[in-house]
């Protein structure tokens, strides 16, 4: 039972990450490979606050979001005019830099040793000790992120994002400043990713740099692409599939030392297959440009 609850918590965390990335990737059409960086910033910020200042969960959550949002704004402003694969490389660099900071700024982040002993979250005076209690917290944050994303993507703001995604020149010719929309959505996406980071830190009670690598960012892109970019539900489906699939493999009785590698290979094959056969993902409507042109 605890195992199922554990999977559900992971689904919530990856669900938040994937929905947050989809705002940038699926709705604004910006290919970012830095989601794990903001995930990590959220995780480290809340862990450091919890351990050094002893501030309550919700305060740390807000601080984590603020930190990630600020980093997001500072980073996206110089790269806001970069497009397509160039933006992917720029965000990839950001990801590498942030990872290096986690790993090497030992005085603050504990370096490769990470930060152990993150306390259990206390919300409204209740200590969330059991997996079920934690799941409720994770689920409510997921619902919050999903609802906010639904409102935003259906608002006039979201309409402009869809416009920019498909035809920036036309959208700009209606007087919309592409840069302003991109900066705003990138910052919001970073803040949402920080929620996932905060949840993760409190859930595992320990964080180290290996959770927030480039591979993790690519995995989140995979969750969005496979689930379906450009819809809020697609990434959620992707999170359910990609979190449970490796667990199913576990029951196939593969030897432990192969399982990890096979998981990686399978993930790679899945992404390639989806890009070739179903670029709009499992339930998405928006295919990537390169794949649409061939149709």
């Amino acid at each position, binding site marked *: 039972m605890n195992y199922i609850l554990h999977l559900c918590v992971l689904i919530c965390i990856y669900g938040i990450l994937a929905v947050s990335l989809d705002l940038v990737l699926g709705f604004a059409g910006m290919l970012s490979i830095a989601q794990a960086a903001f995930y990590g910033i959220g995780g480290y910020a809340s862990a450091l606050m919890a351990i050094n200042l002893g501030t309550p969960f919700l305060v740390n959550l807000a601080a984590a979001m603020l930190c990630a949002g600020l980093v997001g704004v500072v980073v996206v402003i110089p790269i806001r005019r970069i497009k397509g694969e160039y933006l992917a490389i720029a965000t990839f660099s950001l990801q590498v830099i942030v990872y290096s900071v986690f790993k090497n700024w030992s005085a603050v982040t504990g370096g490769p040793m990470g930060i152990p002993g993150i306390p259990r979250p206390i919300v409204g005076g209740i200590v969330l000790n059991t997996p079920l209690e934690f799941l409720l917290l994770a689920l409510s944050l997921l619902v919050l992120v999903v609802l906010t994303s639904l409102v*935003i993507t259906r608002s*006039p703001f979201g*309409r402009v994002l869809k416009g920019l995604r498909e035809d920036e020149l036309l959208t700009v*010719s*209606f007087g919309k400043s*592409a840069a302003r929309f991109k900066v705003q959505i990138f910052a919001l996406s970073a803040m949402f990713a920080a929620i996932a980071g905060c949840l993760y830190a409190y859930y595992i009670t320990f964080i180290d740099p290996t959770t927030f690598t480039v591979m993790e960012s690519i995995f989140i892109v995979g969750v969005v692409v496979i689930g379906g970019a450009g819809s809020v539900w697609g990434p959620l489906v992707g999170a359910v599939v990609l979190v449970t699939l490796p667990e199913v493999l576990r029951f196939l009785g593969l030897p432990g030392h192969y399982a990890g590698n096979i998981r990686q290979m399978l993930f790679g094959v899945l992404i390639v297959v989806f890009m070739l056969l179903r670029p709009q993902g499992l339930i998405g409507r928006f295919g990537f440009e390169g794949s649409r042109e061939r149709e």
Partner: protein
Amino acid sequence: MNVSEHVKVEHVSKRFGEVVAIDDLSLQLFPGEVLGLVGPNGAGKTTLFNLVSGILVPDSGSICICGRNVTGLPPYRVARIGVGRMFQELRLIRQISVLENVMLAFPRQPGENLSGVAFRWRSVIRTEKENRRRAEEILNEVGLLHELHAEAEALSYGQQKLLCIACLIASGAGLLLMDEPIAGIAPEMASTILLIIEELSKRGTSTILIDHDLDAVSSVCKRIAFLDAGRKRAEGTPDEIRNNPDVIEAYLE
């Protein structure tokens, strides 16, 4: 400053490497006027539109719109002054509905700001309702009301051109730059579009109309400028342009 001109292009030049696309070109457009812009391929007509709308920056010269110098302003700032552009290659947001395309075009929407969506949602909802009503009016006017919820890419080519015009009307632009709005569509559709352009002109919208079809341009424009190799070779009434030896030569080629 004399601001009687809606658009005043003065001694503008633009070169791409060795190629001179626009060569010391000056042009005026008066409020409510429909100015025809004709000339062979590569004459610099579309380049001129790109310069006026801010997509390109001139190497020299200046462009004033409503008496305001817009030379070097980014495209979205130029658009906010009230410049609408209909692109030669048909541009629409294909994956959203006809209605949403028009709704996208309305200027200064409070819901286009995250803080607006979060804190001023009452005004956002009110504006959305109002814009939706106006969008339906505009779509009715251009004859697309029955396609309200269709995806833009499901429309026929001519209907897509009408949708572009609906978006321009919604944008509230006082100056329209129309790049071949009637090229390649059925004659009935073309006359519908020309009628809409005339109607907008009566309401005070100024238009620069690019087209190859001298007859069509003559039917809506009282003044036509003829461009060739980046220079303005002739300017005058449709009759003057038709009888101009340079124009005749260019069109007989």
